[in-house]
C-alpha cells in the first residue's frame, strides 16, 4: 500500500501524462468511430439499400470475433508505432460494434411503423429523424457503450505499439516483475474503465425514450 502511494508521489507528473495520453487516445478514436460509424450505418440502411445494410451486418458480425490485438498488430504493420497508429487501430476496432448495433437497430425498425410514417406524409428525412433514429436509440447507445468499454480496455494494450497511456505502466511493471508498478497502472485503468461505463449507463437511461424503456421491461 505504502509503496503504491510512494510510486504516485514520486511519479505524479509521469502518471498524469500517461493518464492524459490514455484518455486522449480513447476519446479521439471513440468520437471518430461514433461519427463515422453512425454515418455508415445510416447510409447503408436507406430505403432500397437494405441489402447493403444486411451485408454490412454479416461482415461486422463476424469482425466482432477478431481480437483487438490483431487489429492493433495489423495497423502497426501498415503504419508503424506511436500515438496516431494507436488511434487509427482503436478507431477501426470501435467502428465494428457501433456500426453493427446501429445498423441492426435501424434494420429492425418495423416496416409497419415506417409505412405508417410514410402514409402520414413524412419525407424520408423526417422518417429517419422522427422514427428510425429514435426507435433505434437503445441499439445505437448499446453499440456506443460497448465500443467505449472495448476501446478503453484496448487502449492499455496499445502501449505495445508505443502509444503510451496507462498500459505503458502495466507493461513496465510486468517486464520488471514489479508488483507496485503493475498495480499503479492496473488500478487506475480499471477505475477509469468502470467510471466511463457508469457515466454512459446514466446517459443511456436519460437519452432513451421512456416508452422504449418500458417496452424493454415488458419483455422481461
Amino acid at each position: 500500500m505504502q509503496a503504491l502511494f510512494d510510486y504516485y508521489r514520486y511519479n505524479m507528473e509521469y502518471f498524469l501524462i500517461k493518464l492524459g495520453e490514455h484518455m486522449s487516445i480513447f476519446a479521439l478514436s471513440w468520437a471518430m468511430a461514433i461519427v463515422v460509424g453512425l454515418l455508415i450505418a445510416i447510409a447503408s440502411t436507406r430505403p432500397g439499400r437494405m441489402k447493403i445494410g444486411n451485408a454490412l451486418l454479416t461482415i461486422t458480425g463476424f469482425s466482432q470475433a477478431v481480437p483487438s490485438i490483431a487489429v492493433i498488430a495489423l495497423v502497426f504493420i501498415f503504419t508503424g508505432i506511436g500515438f496516431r497508429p494507436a488511434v487509427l487501430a482503436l478507431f477501426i476496432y470501435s467502428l465494428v460494434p457501433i456500426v453493427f448495433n446501429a445498423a441492426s437497430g435501424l434494420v429492425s425498425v418495423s416496416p409497419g411503423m415506417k409505412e405508417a410514417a410514410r402514409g402520414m406524409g413524412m419525407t424520408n428525412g423526417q422518417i429517419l429523424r422522427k422514427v428510425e433514429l429514435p426507435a433505434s436509440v437503445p441499439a445505437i447507445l448499446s453499440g456506443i457503450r460497448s465500443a467505449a468499454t472495448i476501446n478503453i480496455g484496448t487502449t492499455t494494450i496499445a502501449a505495445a505499439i508505443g502509444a503510451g497511456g496507462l498500459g505503458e505502466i502495466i507493461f513496465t511493471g510486468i517486464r520488471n516483475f514489479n508488483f507496485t508498478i503493475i498495480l499503479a497502472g492496473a488500478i487506475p485503468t480499471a477505475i477509469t474503465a468502470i467510471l466511463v461505463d457508469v457515466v454512459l449507463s446514466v446517459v443511456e437511461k436519460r437519452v432513451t425514450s421512456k416508452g422504449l424503456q418500458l417496452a424493454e421491461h415488458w419483455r422481461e
Partner: protein
Amino acid sequence: MAIELKKLRKVYGESTVAVDDVDLTFEDKKISILIGPSGCGKTTTLKMINRLIERTSGDIIIDGRSIDEIGVIELRRSIGYVIQEIGLFPHMTVFDNIAVVPRLLKWPEDKIKKRVMELLDLMNLDPDEHPYKYPVQLSGGQKQRVGVARGLAADPEILLMDEPFGAIDPINREKLQDAFIEIQEQINKTIVFVTHDIREAIKLGDNIAIFNEGKLVQYDETMTVINEPADDFVENLLGSDRGLRSMELVRVHDHYDTDFFALELTEKLTVGDALKEIEKTDRRYAYVLNEKKRLAGYVVRKKIEKANKSDPLKKHVKETESIHPSSSLLEAMSLMMTSGLSAVPVVDDRGRVRGVVRFSALMEMFGSVDLTGSD
C-alpha cells in the same frame, strides 16, 4: 370528398396483376368496404390512393383532381391512414403519436393540444391519464383507438383504414366497431375500409366492394349486396345464414323511415283536435310528443274515434317501446315480435324521434329470412 378510381390497374413485376382495371367511386361521407380473399388486391388498391404504391395505369380522382396534381407529401398529410397496431411509434407518448401530422403541418402547439384532447374524448380515452402513456402501456383496443385518433388528427376529409381491427380479439373488436359507428356519425368522413371479415363489412359498410383476383366483382350498397349477390362467389363470401346474420349486423341507423306522423301534446289538446289532425293524413296511428318534443307514446285512430271527443288526449296516450339508431335490425325485429307492434319508433340519445322501422320494410329487405332460425 368522393374518390373515383378510373380503370385503376397495378401490375407487380412482369405479370402479377394485383388490381385489374377497377372502376368505382367511394362516395362522400360514406364508409366503403373493400373485401375479398387474401391477395385479391385490397391493400394495393388502398395504398394507391395515398400513393404508398404507384399505380401502373388508370387514374384516381379526389374532389375532381387527379391525385398526381397534388404533391405526394401534401396528399398524404391530407388523408388519414390507419393500419394495424404496429404503426404506433413506441418511443412517443400517446399525445405525441396523435400529434404527428399536426406537427408536420406546423400547427401552433395550443391548437394541437386542443385537438388531441378533443380526439381522446371522441375515442373515449381518459384525457387526464392517457395522453402521457406510451403504447406499451395500452391494451390492444386502446392502441387501436389511438391509431384511429392519429389518423383523424389533422381533420382529413378522407380516412384510409387497412384491417384496423384485425389484430384485436372478437369481443373487443365488436366494441371498437360499435364505437367506430358512433364516431363516424359525428365526423362524417369519407372512409375506405379494408377487411376480410364479412361481419365487419356488413356491420360498418354503407357500401361494399367485393374483389377477387384483382377484379371488382360487385360494388353496391350493403343491403343490395346481401339481397342480390352478383354471383356465386359473393354468395359464398356472405355465407349460408346470411339473412339472419346480416339482420343482426345491419344497424337501424341507415334503414329507418323518416315518414311518420306525430302530434304535439299540450294540456288543452282534446281527442277531437287530435282526430282532426290525423284525419288529414289517413294514418292509422300517430306518435305523440310532449312539450320538450320527446316521445310520450302513441294513439290509435280507431280507438280514439270511439272515445269522448272532449276528453284530453293525454288520457288515451299509450306508452310504446322505442329503439336506438345504433341497434341492429334484428333487435328491432324481436321488439316487434314481443310487443306486437308493426312499427317501432327510432329515438336517439337526446330523446328525439328520428323515424320508424316498419315490419313490412324489414320483410321487404330480407325477403325470405327464416326467423325461427337455425339455433
